[in-house]
């Protein structure tokens, strides 16, 4: 329809329909084609959004974790959004080590206090996902390599994280992510 509306000449049409015939005719064709275009666009919308997370996936985006049983120096792995979540109770030495590091020397400047909740500075909650390319770092389980800085060590490309989960050495650009969470009681956190 589009190209023929372009080929219509004013003379041929004017003979039949008078002066404003061209405009009216063109208008109908353009309007019909535009409507078809709008309809097609509208149909594409659900076809694209169907790939976004479905309702059951979105609903899994909060997880409750009981942190009472974690001894200082220990860590547990929980699952948050189908990804590992590290919850670690720091020893006083680890806290000191983290606080003694000047933030100005860090690639991603954050203090331990920035990364924990007030009153619970010994509970470090981070995603167990290396910020480099998404491997799971070692160091959460007993006996695993904690790296040079006593935190986490990513075996894929050698990123080293300190006791506050901050990147100290290796390719990872940022610290291990601290997800949104809150203490719903003294012993339980709700992540997400």
């Amino acid at each position: 329809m589009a190209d023929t509306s372009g080929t219509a000449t004013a003379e041929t049409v004017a003979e039949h329909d008078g002066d404003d015939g061209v405009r009216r005719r063109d208008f109908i064709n353009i309007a019909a084609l535009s409507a078809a275009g709008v309809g097609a666009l509208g149909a594409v919308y659900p076809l694209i959004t169907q790939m976004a997370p479905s309702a059951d996936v979105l609903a899994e985006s909060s997880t409750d974790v009981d942190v009472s049983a974690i001894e200082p120096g220990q860590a547990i792995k929980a699952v948050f959004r189908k990804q590992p979540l590290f919850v670690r109770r720091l020893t006083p030495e680890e806290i000191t080590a983290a606080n003694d590091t000047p933030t100005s020397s860090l690639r991603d400047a954050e203090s331990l206090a920035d990364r924990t909740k007030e009153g619970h500075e010994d509970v470090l909650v981070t995603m167990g996902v290396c910020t480099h390319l998404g491997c799971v770092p070692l160091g959460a389980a007993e006996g695993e390599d904690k790296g040079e800085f006593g935190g986490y060590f990513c075996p894929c490309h050698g990123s080293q994280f300190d006791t506050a989960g901050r990147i100290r050495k290796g390719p990872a650009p940022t610290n291990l992510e601290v997800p949104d969470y809150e203490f719903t009681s003294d012993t339980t956190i709700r992540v997400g």
Partner: protein
Amino acid sequence: MSFPWAKQYTPANDFTKWIDEKLPLPRLVYNAVGAGYPVPRNLSYMWNFGVLAGFCLVLQIVTGVILAMHYAPNALVAFSSTEHIMRNVNWGWMLRYAHANGASFFFLVLYLHIFRGLYYSSYKAPREMIWLLGVVIFLLVMATAFMGYVLPWGQMSFWGAKVITGLFGAIPLVGEPIQIWLLGGYAPDNAALNRFFSLHFLLPFVTAGVIILHIWALHIPGSSNPTGVEVKSESDTVPFHPYYTAKDGFGLGVFLIAYLAMVFFLPNFLGHADNYIEANPLATPANIVPEWYFWPFYAILRAFTFDFILPAKLWGVIGMFASILLWFILPWLDRSPVRSGHYRPLFRKFFWFGLIPCILVLGYCGGAHLSTFTILASQIATAYYFLHFLVILPLISSFEKPEPLPYSITEAVLGSDKQAVLGENAQPAV
């Protein structure tokens, strides 16, 4: 297309010229559904359904590929994954209802397309190949639809799969091994579900390939038309574009209104409640019926009840398959030189007062609860069905005196065939 007055594609600029030299795809489209394809000027709205059937295939492929992103073909979770699509996936309910009702509307359009072909004898020379390929497409779509219906793994899915594969069990000696081989087990289960899913995904693309052949074969003699008189001169035709693209665009709009009204307001009207019960090998639904588009054939299957030399079950299977396969020899059964039913008084009577009521009765009986009445009615209708195609059509041309045909399509449209009449308006004044 071979009409000498067909417009030739001329590239508009250097880029399209370059494309035309390297890969003349725009030229192909121009000659297939563009201004380069001259079409009889007198096509009625019955000629809209070919394009609509093509649209339905695209619709089914698009929605189907998307549903396959969320569906899991495993007997343990197939039913739940279908409900997952309905409840959790963004717009999943719409996509599934669009696909399920899309199948129904695909068949509706196909049946109208086939009835057009039967009434106007579109199967006659020189268009036999188009018809034969059309029957192949119909068989492929039927197979695809059947396997698709199994995928939600509801009660009707399960028992449909069991009953239809059971048809092959009617074949003497090898029947039972064939049925077990088809299912990959003694009853429909994971193996059957997985192969049905695989084939359900594959066959539409095979169908698309055969449709390309169907359209290719169509472009050799060109489209038929309601008079059945072949195109004689340029004044008998108009270019496909813009005339028939505009008409098909309007037809598509009407189709979409009917189709989406079903999708949004009555999405389960054509379905069966039992298919919302998860497949249960231990309980058969009270009335196993296929989807409406298989009802006529199902009625033929159930019409044979008496062991006449061969077992009734085998007769039913033979009758059902024969009822479709006989379409393959239709071009050689109907020898009347006149194509259009408009000019065949006797054929017209048998068509409207014989074949159409017969198909409707078969359709009703195939979907209804089995009763004495539906069995007896479907037996009479089945008898007429075979008589119509295999006996009446071959014989009718000997007795029939066709009505006078118009000299040309132009005469049929304008009342007289003078180039001058059309000449002044030959160009579309768009």
